[in-house]
């Protein structure tokens, strides 16, 4: 995913199939415009429609979905708009959870990426491969395995009680902590890969120079290495934060009913009993807007970093 930007821009352009270009690209354009782009546009339209009970919409334009999201209009719905906290709290909790999962991934992912990037060049691909394998294992199965590990009678509690570290099994499942760990576990490889790519390009003579000037290792890390590989770190954080924000499986299987996140809120509008499609579309639009803003900041940051390199 992180390598994607490279395939978009540079590289000497070969023109072998210049005349056939439109024909070659047409199937991809059509498929993605019909099946991804226009559905997203349609979703925007749906978020301004009137809800039909038990799913679906009535084609009457209204701001009701956004009003429901942001406005508290009292018990009978006839008062003025005061800020409605229910859904903002869910979004805020999602941001918070995704943020903590990102920090946790960074704490483990950065040293791992650095360690791999400083191995001999011929064994690095194997290390990278080891880190990527879990990503290709079904996310559902990985989340189930986390649930299995953190159960009250699960292996983690058995180990801790068995070795006498704790007396009573810990309640881990159905807590915020379980969701954070689940998200961290789901997206950890995304943190390692871009940081690895950045550290691999890092010129270690900079560290040598810092050491020659009597900088300690940790000063060198903070003042020389980190600023240089910052684009990779930011890429990793975004790749973990963005999917965590809209995650459904980890909050659903590990968090229980009390630790609702955006993904569950949206799912409930289409699958559960609430059945409010325009509201689900509006919540999706708000999530999408947040993600796109983050990606735009990231893209600007990256292009600035690239210009800095040149």
């Amino acid at each position, binding site marked *: 995913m992180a390598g994607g930007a490279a395939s978009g821009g540079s590289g000497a352009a070969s023109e072998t199939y210049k005349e056939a270009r439109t024909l070659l690209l047409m199937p991809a354009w059509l498929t993605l415009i019909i*099946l991804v782009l226009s559905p997203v546009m349609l979703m925007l339209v749906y978020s301004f429609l009137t809800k039909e009970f038990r799913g679906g919409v009535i084609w009457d334009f209204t701001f009701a979905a956004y009003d429901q999201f942001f406005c508290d209009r009292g018990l009978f719905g006839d008062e003025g708009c005061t800020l409605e906290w229910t859904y903002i709290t869910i979004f805020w909790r999602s941001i918070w959870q995704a943020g903590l999962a990102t920090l946790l991934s960074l704490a483990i992912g950065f040293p791992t990426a650095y360690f*791999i990037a400083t191995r001999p060049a011929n064994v690095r691909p194997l290390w990278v491969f080891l880190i990527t394998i879990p990503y290709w294992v079904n996310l559902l199965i990985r989340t189930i395995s986390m649930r*299995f590990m953190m159960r009250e009678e699960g292996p983690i509690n058995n180990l801790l009680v068995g070795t006498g570290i704790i007396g009573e099994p810990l309640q881990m499942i159905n807590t915020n902590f379980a969701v954070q760990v689940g998200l961290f576990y789901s997206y950890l490889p995304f943190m390692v890969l871009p940081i690895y790519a950045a550290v691999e390009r890092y010129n270690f003579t900079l560290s040598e120079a810092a050491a020659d000037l009597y900088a300690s290792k940790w000063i060198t890390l903070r003042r020389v290495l980190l600023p240089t590989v910052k684009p990779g770190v930011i890429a990793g954080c975004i790749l973990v934060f963005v999917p965590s924000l809209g995650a459904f499986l980890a909050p659903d299987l590990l968090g229980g009913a009390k630790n609702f996140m955006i993904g569950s809120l949206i799912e409930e509008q289409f699958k559960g009993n609430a059945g409010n499609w325009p509201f689900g579309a509006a919540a999706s639009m708000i999530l999408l807007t947040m993600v796109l803003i983050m990606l735009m900041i990231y893209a600007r940051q990256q292009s600035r970093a690239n210009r800095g390199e040149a």
Partner: protein
Amino acid sequence: MASRKFDVRRYPGFAQLTVLCLLILYVPLLVVAVYSFNASASIIVFEGFSWRWYVDVFVGSDSAKFKEAAWNSFFIAIIAATVATTIATLAATGMVRGGFFRGRTLSFGLISLPLMVPEIVTAVATLIFFNSIAFERGIMTILLAHIAFCIPFAYLPIAARMQGIEDTYEQAAQDLYATKRQAFTKILLPLMMPGIISGYLLAFIISLDDFIITNFVKGAGVETLPTAIFGAVKQGIRPNIMAISTMLLGFSIVMVTISYFVSKRGDHK
């Protein structure tokens, strides 16, 4: 310079954290795999090795449900990966061998759109789309959604591979009076094969593993393996679920390993 007292590259604790990282990634999967061979019906204690839950998956009370789900999953994954890889190969040729054109960045943005939009948003949008054109939900809706979603996953390794192949081979073929079509099918495609295979396998796994989009666009009564497993887990993690998960897990790992070695062999050529 070289005789410095310490190695500037080495930081204490980083190796240990790397080991911790690998443990975190692999231990939960290993534990599930081990417990899938548990002789006991309990998921709490391990009481010796047994194949009984694997037998249960194939002949037990839920076997009909799982068989149908597995059939659906593989049918959808094979077709979705084939179509997505074909579309992605053509698109990569247009992007990498089509010279510069206005809208190239836009085109790339469109191709990677499914990676940028959160999956749950894609799921909602696709459901709304099929609903608005009154397209009945079922296998067909899952298939179409998967084709679109798999395109970038097939595209990225294919385009990366094509960028690594110089166009001199195709030029030479054309100098020897090969048509463009011949240069494409006889020269470029065979050279591209490692990238195409690796793209195909990745698209296949993405389709096989997808839960969120499938869960939204599937019709009532139509299940794929992930949605069937999810439904079963809601009633508690039973050992047969661990057996079926372990099989799926093993299958994905084998596929990714093949993809890795195919693309690696391609690099050395």
